[in-house]
C-alpha cells in the first residue's frame, strides 16, 4: 500500500527509465568520452553496458522481492523506521540535488544554444514549472506522455544520424584500441554513473502492472541505451573525428547542423533542441517525482502532491545555487561517478545484502512469504 495509486505498463516503465538515463547523457557525454578515450569510445559503451546490466539485475532483484513496496517503504521495513527514514531522506536528497544539476544543465544548454540574451533563471523556472505540473498530475500521466514522446524523439534523433552518414569518414576509428586501460575505465565509470540513475525505477516499481516483468525491463532498457549511445557516439566521432568531438561542447547538436535534406530543408537542428527539451523535461519530472515521493514516504505523509509546489521553489533555487559557472558543471562530471556509486550504488548494495542475509537467516519463511506475495499479485 503505497501513496501512488496509478499503474504503468512495462513499455511505459522501459521508456521512462531509458529516457531518464539518456536525456542528459546525450548532451555532454560524447564530448567527455572523446576527451578520455577518443575513437575507442565504443569500448566504454560496451563495458558500461555490461556493468549496467549487472547493476540492473540487483535493482530488479530488489524490486521483484518487494513487488508492492517502493525502496523507502522496504528500507523502513528492513532497517527499522529510523534507519529506513534516513535512507529514504538520503535517497530523496540525492535525487533533489541531482535534479538541480540536470535542470541547470538544460538551462545552460538553452541559454548557450538558443537564446543567449535570456537569463538562466528564466529557463530554470520554466522547466521546473512544467515538471511540477507533470508531477502534480501523477506518475501515470507523465509516463503516458513519455510513452509518446520518447519513441518519437529517439526516432527523429536516429533519423538525424542516418542522414549524416554520407558525410561521415570511417577512417576516424582507424587506430583502434590505442587508449590505456585507465582511460577506458574512466570513460566507462562516467557512463556507468548515468546507468545508475536507473535506480529511480525502484521508487515506482510497485506501480508496475506486472511486477514479475522486471528482468525484461532491465534488458530492454540496456538494449535501447546501448543502441542509442553507440549510434550517437559512433556517428559523432565518424563525422568530426575524436579531437574535434572532444573540443565541441554539444557534438550531437553540431551533427544535426550538418544535416541537409534535398538542398532546401536546412537548419533543422532546432528540432534537436525540441527533442532535448522534451526528453530533459521528462527526466526532470522523473527525478522530481522520485525525490518528492521519497520524502513523503519517509515522513509518513499520506500524499506526495502537497510537497510538489514548495519543492519546486527549492529545485529552482538549487539549480542556480549548485554551480557557480559552466566550468564547475564540466568538472562536476569528474565527481559524478564517485557520487552516484557511493550513494545510489551504496544504498542498493546495502539493501541487497541485508535482504540476502535476512533470507538466509529466516530461510524458508521468507520464501513462503515471497510465494504468497506472488500469488496475491
Amino acid at each position: 500500500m503505497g501513496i501512488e495509486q496509478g499503474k504503468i505498463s512495462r513499455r511505459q516503465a522501459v521508456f521512462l527509465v531509458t529516457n531518464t538515463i539518456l536525456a542528459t547523457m546525450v548532451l555532454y557525454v560524447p564530448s567527455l568520452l572523446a576527451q578520455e578515450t577518443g575513437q575507442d569510445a565504443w569500448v566504454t559503451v560496451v563495458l558500461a553496458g555490461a556493468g549496467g546490466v549487472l547493476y540492473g539485475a540487483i535493482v530488479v532483484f530488489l524490486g521483484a522481492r518487494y513487488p508492492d513496496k517502493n525502496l523507502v517503504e522496504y528500507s523502513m521495513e528492513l532497517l527499522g523506521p529510523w534507519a529506513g527514514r534516513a535512507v529514504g531522506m538520503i535517497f530523496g536528497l540525492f535525487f533533489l540535488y541531482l535534479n538541480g544539476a540536470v535542470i541547470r544543465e538544460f538551462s545552460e544548454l538553452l541559454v548557450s544554444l538558443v537564446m543567449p540574451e535570456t537569463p538562466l533563471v528564466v529557463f530554470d523556472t520554466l522547466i521546473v514549472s512544467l515538471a511540477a505540473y507533470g508531477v502534480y498530475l501523477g506518475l501515470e500521466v507523465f509516463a503516458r506522455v513519455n510513452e509518446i514522446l520518447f519513441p518519437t524523439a529517439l526516432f527523429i534523433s536516429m533519423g538525424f544520424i542516418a542522414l549524416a552518414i554520407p558525410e561521415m569518414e570511417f577512417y576516424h576509428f582507424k587506430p583502434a584500441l590505442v587508449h590505456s586501460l585507465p582511460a577506458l575505465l574512466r570513460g566507462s565509470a562516467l557512463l556507468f554513473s548515468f546507468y545508475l540513475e536507473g535506480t529511480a525505477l525502484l521508487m515506482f516499481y510497485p506501480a508496475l502492472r506486472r511486477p514479475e516483468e522486471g528482468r525484461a525491463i532491465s534488458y530492454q532498457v540496456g538494449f535501447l541505451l546501448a543502441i542509442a549511445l553507440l549510434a550517437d557516439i559512433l556517428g559523432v566521432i565518424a563525422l568530426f573525428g575524436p579531437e574535434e568531438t572532444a573540443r565541441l561542447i554539444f557534438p550531437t547538436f553540431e551533427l544535426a547542423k550538418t544535416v541537409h535534406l534535398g538542398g532546401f530543408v536546412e537548419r533543422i537542428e532546432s528540432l534537436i533542441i525540441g527533442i532535448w527539451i522534451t526528453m530533459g523535461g521528462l527526466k526532470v519530472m522523473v527525478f522530481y517525482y522520485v525525490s518528492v515521493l521519497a520524502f513523503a514516504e519517509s515522513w509518513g505523509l499520506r500524499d506526495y502532491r502537497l510537497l510538489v509546489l514548495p519543492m519546486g521553489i527549492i529545485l529552482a533555487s538549487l539549480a542556480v545555487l549548485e554551480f557557480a559557472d559552466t566550468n564547475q558543471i564540466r568538472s562536476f562530471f569528474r565527481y559524478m561517478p564517485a557520487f552516484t556509486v557511493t550513494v545510489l550504488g551504496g544504498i542498493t548494495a546495502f539493501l541487497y545484502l541485508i535482504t540476502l542475509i535476512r533470507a538466509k537467516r529466516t530461510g524458508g519463511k521468507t520464501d513462503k512469504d515471497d510465494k504468497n506475495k506472488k500469488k496475491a499479485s
Partner: protein
Amino acid sequence: MLRKVRKPLKPSELKMRKINARLQELQPKEVLEQPISPDLDYNVKLMKELFGNSSDLVVREFHFGSDKEIRVALIFIDGLVDKISLSEAVLKPLLYRTIVDEERKLLPGNAFELIRDWLITFASTKEVDKMGDLLDLVLAGFAAFFVDGFEYALAPEVKGWKDRSIEEPKTESFVRGPRDGFTETLRTNTALIRRRIRTPRLRFDIYQVGRVTKTDICVAYIDGLVNPATVDEVKRRIESIDTDSILESGYLEDFIKDNAWTPFTLLDRTERPDKVAAALIEGRVAILVDTTPFALIVPAVFTEFLQSTEDYYEWSESARSLRWLAILITLTFPSLYVALTTFHQEMIPVGLALSMAAGREGVPFPAVIEALIMEVTFDLLREAGTRMPRSVGQTLGVVGAIVLGQAAVMAGIVSPFIVIVVALTAVTSFLIPNYSASLTIRLLRYPILILAGMFGLVGVFLGLMAILLHMASLRSFGVPYLYPITPAVPAEWKDVFYRAPWWKMDLRPLLLRSPNRRRQAPGQRPEPPPVRPGRETEAVIEDGCQKNCAGGNRGSG
C-alpha cells in the same frame, strides 16, 4: 479513523445540509402528494389554482350518459396535445354513445370502469390516483380526464405538438452518408436510432432531470455489447444531478464530465443518428435529451474528434493524416512565426528571411502583438459570422477576410506573412470535424503564441508539452483521453492515423471493455474469384480461343 469519529461533520458537509434545507420544490409537497378527490369540482378548482388560470390550460366540463347525469371534466394544455385525435378518440365516443351495449349501461356508479375499458379508444392511457403524477402527465402532453365520484383520473396520451421535420444536420457537413438528423422530439430521435438497429437489446432508459423543466433524458445502449459498468456510471452521474433546468445537452455535459476544468470536451456530441448508431454498436452509451437535437456519446477519446462519420462511408486514406497535420498547424503555426521572426531569424532559410524582413519593414509592433491582433481579429470575425443572420454572415466573411487583411497590410499595420499564417490556421482549424474540439484547439493557440513571444521556440515546445500532459491526465468515463495513442495500443492505430478498410477492423475498441469484442468474422478480405464466374466450364477452351473470347470476357466481367 479515530479523528473522523471525533469530528463527524466537515465544514463542507455542514454547508451542504443548510443548502439542502433551503432547496425546495417549486410546488409545495403537500399538494403534489394529495390523492385525487372524488369531488370533481374540487379537482378542477385545484388544477386551475395550480396553473393560476394560465391561458394555455383548457378545462372542459360536460355531462353525458343516457340522462346526462355523469359529470366529467377534461383538462389539457393547448398546444401540447393533438386536438383532432383527442376529439376523435376521447370526446366523440363519450358524447355520441350513451350506452356501451345492452348489459352495460352508463351509470354514475360504473362510469369510470366503462369509460376506461370500453369507450376511450386511445392506445396508451394511464390511470392515476395522485395529483402530482397527473400534473406531470398533463405537462408532458397527456390529457386529464376526471369523472365525478371517482378517486382516479384517466390520462390518455394525446401528445402532439408542432415539431420540426427531420432535416439534414447543420453542424456536420458531409458528402456521402444518410441525410437525416435528430430533431427536438425525443421520440422521433429514438425512432431514428431504432430504425437502424433492429435488435430488442437496444435499450432506452429514461430519466427526468430538472426541478422545473423535468426534462426527459434517455440513456441508450445495446445490452450485451456495452460494458455494464459504464452504463451504471452514466446512470449514477445523471441521477446525482440536482438542478432546476436542463435545456440542452450542454447543461448535462457540464454536470457529468470527469474533469471539471478543462478546455477539452470529454463527451462527443452529434446531430446524426447514424453516428449514434455506430457508437452504440461499438459498445458506447448515448445520452439523448428531449428538446434538443444534440445527443451525447460517452466515453469519448480525443482521437475520435478527428474522425468524421463520412470516413467510414467514403474510404479516403489521407483524410485522417491531413487532420492530424491540421491540428499541428492550427496549434503551432502562428507561434512558430512569432518565435522564428523574433528570436531565431537564423533558422529561417536565407531567401525567405530576406523577404520576410522586407514584409515586416515598417510594421510598428513586435511579431507577437502583430500575430495576436490578427488572430483576435479572425476570431472576432468568426464569432460574428456564427451569430449573424446567415445572409449577412457570408458578406461579412468576404469583407473580413479580403478587405480587412488587405487593408491592414497596405496600411502597414501587419506584414503580409502574418495574414498568410492566420488565413492558413483559419482554414486548417475547420478541418477538425468536431466543432468543440476545433474551438479548443483554436483557443489553445493563444497561450502558445504568448509563450512563443516570451521565450521563443523553447516556449513553444514547453507549451505543447504542458498541453500534452494535461490531455494525458484527462479521462472520459474512466477511459484515458489519449487512449489508443497512450496508453499505447498499436493494434488500434489503424483507426487513428488512417482508416483501415472494414474487413480489417474485426474487433471493437478495447477501451470500451465490451463483453463482446469481436465485431465480425475474420478474414473477409475481398479477393477476385480464382475462376471467373460463369466461365468455370470453359476454362479448358480458353487457351484455344484467346482472341475470340477477349470480347466476351470483358462483357461478363
